[in-house]
């Protein structure tokens, strides 16, 4: 999906840590817990598998987001069907093969179905859990569709519009460096990426200058090259959609400090978007609030806003 190599390996390392940690805590987490035992009886908690877990995984962190629910479900004694994003379908197949290699058949299976068939999947009596990672809008649909048909457990890991606040006494250099990292990691295509930054007025200009310095260090290019730190946008229509949002912001009083346009790599290839900072944003600007009519921008826009918080 275009993630730079360094970030891809970071995701795999995180997957490794996840498996180790979950394996470590599983015996205690899944053990029976006796709450009360006396002559009248025994009260205890037991953790029992629910059958087949249906996991819907997105493309932005194709390994980690899938593994979060996959590993926990399997350790708990469930089998799993994975409906992975059509942009990263090979990951589901790869997990299936990994478990087959480990000696178990039909414990993890990839499922290639259309989104529209998901409702039929929920209705199968063998499905005892649904795990969905993706946009808030689709998550709401999953919630409604499940409630319409069955009462089974589900977990929704949805997109956000995350903000950071830089306080008056912050280490400005460090704050600028880390917030730019949080904003531009995975080209901003992260559900927990920083999308808005509120800065105390006394350090606003200083922070802005340092943020510009760090934003300009990002190297746009081929994600398979070692030096690339900002990869392409995964979905084809994102560059133009983001450009439109930037123009809207400018029309509403935002100041485009750097970037603001789709771009290519040095060889004229790929669909990228320049690292972009818009200053003097206001809370009522369309870019600052969730846009219910464009789920792509809500979750995956790569430009970040700076706002002056008067306190």
């Amino acid at each position, binding site marked *: 999906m275009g993630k730079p190599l360094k970030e891809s*390996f970071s995701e795999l390392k995180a997957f490794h840590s996840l498996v180790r940690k979950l394996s470590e805590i599983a*015996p205690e987490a899944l053990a029976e817990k006796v709450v009360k035992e006396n002559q009248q009886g025994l009260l205890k908690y037991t953790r029992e*598998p629910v059958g087949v877990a249906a996991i819907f995984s997105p493309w932005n962190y194709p390994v980690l987001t899938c593994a979060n629910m996959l*590993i926990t479900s*399997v350790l708990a*004694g469930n089998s799993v069907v994975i409906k992975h994003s059509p942009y990263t379908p090979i990951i589901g197949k790869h997990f299936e093969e990994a478990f087959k290699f*480990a000696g178990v*058949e039909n*414990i993890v299976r990839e499922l290639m179905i259309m989104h529209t068939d998901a409702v039929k999947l929920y209705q199968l009596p063998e499905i005892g859990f649904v795990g969905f990672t993706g946009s808030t809008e689709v998550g709401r649909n999953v919630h409604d569709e499940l409630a319409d048909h069955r009462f089974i457990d589900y977990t929704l890991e949805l997109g956000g519009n995350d903000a950071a606040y830089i306080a008056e006494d912050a280490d400005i250099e460090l704050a600028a460096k880390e917030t730019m990292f949080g904003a531009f990691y995975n080209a901003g295509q992260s559900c927990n990426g920083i999308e808005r930054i509120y800065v105390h007025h006394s350090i606003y200009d200083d922070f802005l200058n340092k943020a510009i310095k760090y934003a300009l260090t990002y190297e746009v290019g081929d994600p398979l090259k070692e030096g690339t730190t900002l990869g392409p946008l995964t979905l084809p229509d994102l560059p133009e959609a983001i450009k439109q949002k930037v123009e809207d912001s400018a029309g509403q009083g935002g100041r485009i400090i750097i970037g603001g346009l789709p771009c290519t790599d040095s060889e004229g290839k790929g669909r990228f978007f320049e690292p972009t900072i818009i200053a003097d944003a206001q809370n009522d600007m369309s870019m600052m609030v969730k846009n219910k009519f464009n789920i792509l921008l809500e979750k995956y826009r790569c430009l970040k806003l700076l706002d002056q918080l008067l306190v």
Partner: protein
Amino acid sequence: MNTIVKECYESHKSWEKVPLGKQIFIQKLTLKDERIKVVKKAAEYFLKVFSLSYY
């Protein structure tokens, strides 16, 4: 879709009886009989494809 889900459900019925690990289930087990061991082995294979080692 229905067939795959049914196959998974059938497998789950035997999988849930596989002990999680030796830590809490005191009985004679082979390593591959433990759920934790299977998960680690699957992760090992998964990472190996990317030239990374689990251990």
